[in-house]
């Protein structure tokens, strides 16, 4: 791909690790060398099992916690958790639970105008106008401004949370499972909203989810995380059409479908991720991997490019048959 076609990176994550815990033996490696790039104007989805470090990464990007090592670059400039308010404005976050992400004691108006005033986004006299603009942006009525969060449904709350994030006119939106708490009928409206924000405002979105069906509908690219590392990154179609990492394959196979499936069949993947405190040696997926080979038990594979815009962290990327060769014995 030529330089001209190369989409610009707004956010780059380089070798970021995050450790939790105090003792030497008890450190929990929530992130263990993550590389990821978010391009301008794209929706990048981050999927992975619970505890794989998605939220941790989101928090680091948003600056609510700092990484143990590694770099985060915004437009090529390194940013840290202690960032200037202009830098802080550029990256905004939307949380999973619309019920706890709004202050129950503040009306929508006071919550939004507070942010506008603090950041002097618009002159004081234009605040009212700006509020209406924000409300229409997220598809809410102006009359909602004077209500308290408790008067809204989950989907509406999530819109308000998004409006608050948009109030400071960010370039990048980090959305940590913004639809997981919503009913399907509502979920669709929020997905629509993200879609239009991207196309109308040119926002870059890091969209964290665990539901592959949702991600498939929305994302341009998908990154699959496993136990604190990126297992595979690819364009959405590529990923679903030809998943290279055994974990990605299992994940896709596990998605419940609208058509019947033979439940007598053994599940696509056995066991559950091991504790991030006691990581296995070698490839961290090897205890559950149907294709695990001796190499996999010794060395950890790096995230390698297998095709244009498609990287996989597996020793045998591109060589795997669809049928498992080894039944895993290890469990949990």
């Amino acid at each position, binding site marked *: 791909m030529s330089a001209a076609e190369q989409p610009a990176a707004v956010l780059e994550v380089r070798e970021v690790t995050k450790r939790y815990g105090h003792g030497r033996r008890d450190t929990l490696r929530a992130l263990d060398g993550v590389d990821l790039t978010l391009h301008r104007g794209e929706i990048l989805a981050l999927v992975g099992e619970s505890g794989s470090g998605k939220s941790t990464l989101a928090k680091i990007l948003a*600056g609510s916690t700092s990484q143990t090592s590694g770099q985060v670059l915004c437009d090529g400039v390194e940013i840290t958790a202690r960032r200037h308010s202009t830098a802080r404005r550029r990256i905004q976050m939307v949380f999973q639970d619309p019920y*706890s992400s709004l*202050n129950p*004691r503040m009306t929508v108006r006071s919550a939004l105008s507070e942010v506008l005033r603090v950041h002097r986004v618009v002159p004081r006299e234009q605040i009212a106008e700006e509020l209406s603009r924000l409300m229409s942006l997220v598809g809410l009525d102006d009359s909602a401004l004077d209500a308290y969060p408790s008067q809204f449904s989950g989907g509406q709350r999530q819109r308000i949370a998004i409006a608050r*994030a948009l109030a400071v006119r960010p370039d990048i939106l980090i959305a940590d499972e913004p639809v997981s708490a919503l009913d399907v009928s509502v979920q669709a409206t929020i997905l629509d909203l993200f879609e239009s924000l991207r196309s109308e405002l040119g926002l870059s979105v890091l969209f964290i989810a665990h539901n592959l069906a949702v991600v498939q509908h929305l994302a341009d690219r998908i990154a699959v995380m496993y136990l604190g590392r990126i297992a595979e990154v690819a364009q959405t179609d590529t990923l679903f059409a030809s998943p290279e990492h055994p974990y990605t394959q299992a994940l896709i196979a596990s998605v419940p479908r609208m058509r019947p499936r033979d439940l007598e069949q053994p599940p696509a993947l056995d066991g559950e991720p091991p*504790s991030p405190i006691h990581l296995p040696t070698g490839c961290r997926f090897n205890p559950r991997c149907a294709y695990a080979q001796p190499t996999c038990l010794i060395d950890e594979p790096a995230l390698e490019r297998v095709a244009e815009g498609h990287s996989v962290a597996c020793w045998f990327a591109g060589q795997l048959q669809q049928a498992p060769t080894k039944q895993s014995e290890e469990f949990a």
Partner: protein
Amino acid sequence: MTTFSLTHRFRPSRREARPAARRLRPWYQNRSLVAGLVIVCIMVLLAVLAPVLAPYNPIKQNLNEALQGPSGAHWLGTDKLGRDVLSRLLYGARVDLRIGFLAVIIPFVVGTILGAIAGYFGGWLDIIIMRIVDVFYAFPLFLLVIALVFVLGPGESSIYLAIALVSWVSYCKIVRGEVIVARQQEYVQAARLGGLNNARVLGRHIGPNVISQAITYAMSDIVMDIMVIVTLGYLGLGITPPTAEWGSMIADAQEFITTLWWMAVVPGVAVVITGLGLSLIGDGLTDLLSPERRK
């Protein structure tokens, strides 16, 4: 085997939407709160109107009518010095309610601020503040208050000071715990990520949501403070006589417990009713201010 519970967090389940419960009931439908407010308001009203309502001067002695039982002239009888018990009770409400409320204000403010700081910023500040709290916590309230009043000499101002010095720690502990919980709330994180400064986050976003516990506690604290005054009276360290005050009335009656036992009961009942009212308000506030914590 020893996996940590933290490593197995779960995706929060979809919150059960409860339209029925989600709507806040207006405060006047909260039975505890209303009952408590009515009781306390009546008490306050009686205290305020004491000069109008009291049939006698509360410190006027009439030794010829000492130690009388209830009668038409003295509805609640007279004390050792022939003073009218009803009048003393009414005037006593002024003193006790005043001390109760005033003695709570300073510890409330100080404890809340320190607790909020400790809980919000954590780290060394937290450790230092909490160790100080631990030190004070190690001494029973009565012990410290008695010792302090002893040191400062009896009297109303000593009582304020002693209580203030000692009881801020409870508020500090309560508020710190609440702030630590609130700090994890997503709306607080959102406010911080929104670039608001710490003072604003604490004051606007955390404060209003954590204060209810402290207010609830303050209600029972007032009762505690009145009991402290009563006990100080028993030990002879209470309010300066002849001021009418429930604590000294109970302490005075102490001599007669084995003979005229009801003498202690009359002011005791006043304390109980006030305590009941305040506790009911506390219960009500708990319900009202933190619907999610409904018991």
